[in-house]
């Protein structure tokens, strides 16, 4: 039963990583990490990444990735801000943000599902388009909304939103066709198709859910920063990717894609960056360290999944 040990260890690595990262940085920063101010900071940072990761894990479960996340968040926030500026209605802004997120999610999903193994290509193209729009608008000058809207940026509300998202996606991922089919597609898409799974539909649904999650994150991002520039949301797709892989998400998807990958990975990744900043490491060095760690994890994840890829 040698393999079972291996499985057990690889299952627990993400948990161990969370504990190690928290304890290590709590010690080296003399407890600064766990102080109320910083906790609030961490929660704000985790919020977007975790909310989106909970959606994106369905995409990663079927063995694809989504590169539009940052661009979409920026565009959602842009549309929301423009609506607030012209009508002043927060509700209308929220509705439009969600509508845009879901719509782009569906388009992205339909394109990606058509490209099968090269699903990241249309995602990449869409990313350029979305970033292009932001740059075009950003070049006209930063768009700002009134500081009073900052009252919507409430940590309590955010915690509530995350709690609901956790419960909802937990059930969706482990106890409904959406999660089970997406993992089955990651495990063997040919078999899934032959067993009557509508592969296209479930892939598109995964992207749609992600689009929805991005739109909610975009709303809170908008009321928090209250200014939209060409750089809004930049690199967020990679933060999500790093978080999921830190959590042990296999790039090939399949049965080893677990709910805890999204949850634990976000905590590890966020505490790691936050902890290094608190420790006084320069931001360019942080980037370097993150890059090396990421490379190691991708390598390990790839090695692990080699047997999983029969093609």
């Amino acid at each position, binding site marked *: 039963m040698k393999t079972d040990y291996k499985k057990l260890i690889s299952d627990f690595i993400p948990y161990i990583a969370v504990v190690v990262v928290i304890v290590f940085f709590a010690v080296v920063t003399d407890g600064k990490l766990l102080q109320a101010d910083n906790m609030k900071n961490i929660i704000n940072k985790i919020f977007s990444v975790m909310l989106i990761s909970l959606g994106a894990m369905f995409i990663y479960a079927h063995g694809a990735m989504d590169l539009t996340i940052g661009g979409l968040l920026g565009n959602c926030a842009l549309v929301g801000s423009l609506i607030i500026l012209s009508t002043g209605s927060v509700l209308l802004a929220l509705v439009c943000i969600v509508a845009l997120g879901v719509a782009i999610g569906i388009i992205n999903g339909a394109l990606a599902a058509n490209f099968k193994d090269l699903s990241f290509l249309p995602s990449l193209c869409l990313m350029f388009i979305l970033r292009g729009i932001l740059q075009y608008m950003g070049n006209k000058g930063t768009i700002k909304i009134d500081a009073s809207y900052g009252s919507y940026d409430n940590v309590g509300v955010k915690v509530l939103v995350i709690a609901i998202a956790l419960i909802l996606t937990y059930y969706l991922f482990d*106890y409904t066709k959406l999660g089970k089919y997406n993992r089955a597609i990651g495990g*063997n898409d040919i078999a899934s198709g032959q067993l009557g799974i509508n592969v296209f539909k479930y892939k598109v649904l995964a992207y749609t859910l992600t689009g929805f999650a991005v739109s909610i994150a975009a709303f809170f991002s908008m009321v928090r920063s209250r200014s939209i520039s060409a750089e809004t949301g930049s690199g967020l797709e990679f933060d999500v990717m790093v978080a999921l892989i830190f959590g042990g998400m296999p790039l090939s998807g399949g049965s080893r894609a677990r709910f805890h990958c999204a949850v634990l990975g976000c905590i590890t990744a966020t505490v790691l960056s936050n902890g290094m900043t608190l420790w006084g490491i320069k931001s360019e060095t942080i980037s370097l360290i993150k890059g090396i760690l990421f490379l190691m994890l991708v390598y390990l994840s790839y090695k692990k999944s080699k047997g999983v890829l*029969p093609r």
Partner: protein
Amino acid sequence: MSDVMLKIKNLEKSYDIVRALRGVNIEVSKGEIRGLIGENGSGKSTVSYIISGMQKTDSGTMTFMGEIYEPKDAIDAGKKGIAMVVQEMGTISGISVAENIFVGKEDLFTKCGVVKRKKMNKEAARILEALGIRNINPNKLIDAYTFEERKLIEIARAMYESPKLLIIDETTTALSHKGRDVLYRLMDQMAKEGKAVLFISHDLEELMEHCNVLTILRDGEIIDHLTKEKYESNVIKKLMVGREIEGDYYRADHTCTYDEEIVLEMKHVTNDVVFDINFKLHRGEILGFSGLSESGIHDIGRLAFGINKPVYGEVTLPSKGKKVKDSRRSMEAGVGYVSKNRDRESLILEDSIRNNIAINAYDLLKSGIIISPKKEKRYVDEQVNTLRIKCSSSEQYVSTLSGGNKQKVAFGRWIGMDADVLILDCPTRGVDIGVKSAMYQLMTKLKKEGKSILIISEELSEVIGMCDRVLVVRDGQISGEMRRDEAMTEQSIIEYMI
């Protein structure tokens, strides 16, 4: 003929936990035609693969022409004087006949990096001529030739280096009488020249007629070597199986029975592989499709389930009043399909037995949109128990199961769904005898329950043993039909096949 050419001592080989060979000893003399016979999985092919350098032995030694023989690969074996014609298709499509014959040896015809085609074609023509094969043009694409002709081309390729030992693995099933004569002539000629042939076949008659010595293998062990004067087919059969052949391995009855009701029908179905396929599958019928692997039989299964779509013609489920459109709708209409390519198309290897069996049954197991883990477990355990899948728990990964148990998992999904029509593509491929007989019993039981089964198989004994009717396919067209109550024999099916 005491001149020993090849001496094999204590050959051992295991695949994971399966011991394919146990202490195999064989001596082949110069001028000998050695027959190798045994059931599927007895180790005949493994022996030939090891001799021809395509696989490595775990332990044991080989001596060839008085020297220690340890081939690195098939090319190395060829240089030392051992060539092999394999069971499966061994030609490369999309290139010419001559290029196929000289694949890997292009250097012989290369000048300044340019392959001299004319010279190559001429040489190829000479080899074919020497074998008495006249109607093959070396310059043409290999795809222009039939399966049989391609086999002959493979033989020509094997003969080019004038090997001292030629291994022929189950090639004759693909050959007609004419092709077989070419091969037999070649074998006799080699024996006369003091070379040797290792001949593997399922056809006992053929082996008894052409071999000087027969070696019988069972479960990876040598049972006996018989010289020509001791040949007797009953004795050999008994030695092969190790017991008197039981009556109930296949279906016991010899009558063709089914209801009038038609559950699946193909009308003029045509695509790029098959042409004008017409048949009716009835309630309670086991219908077999037999033919060579490239004949299109596997496509018929895929068309019947809706994985592939016909260019012309239609597939219907008359009893349900539905058309076959895609696999999802077929499944909903009570049709099940088990692919030939189990690991690639049928199972999610890196996933649990539970997820693999329940995957197409979630609609039965959910309340609202939530799939109940309790119901799921009960459902899966039921299939594991009825099919007696050997596993530690339903959480075990499918990749760790044996071939037979993997196939049971693929079966379990459809048994659980209570499918009315089962399309089984090579259902017992790579499955051991115990599981095979369990599968056959299950099929008989399903037939009695009024389910219909479409078996697509290259194994003739299986279709003869199980089917009410057998349709034989050749080059994408149905070339013959046989009923259970008429005398179905392997020979009569082969006549239609090639």
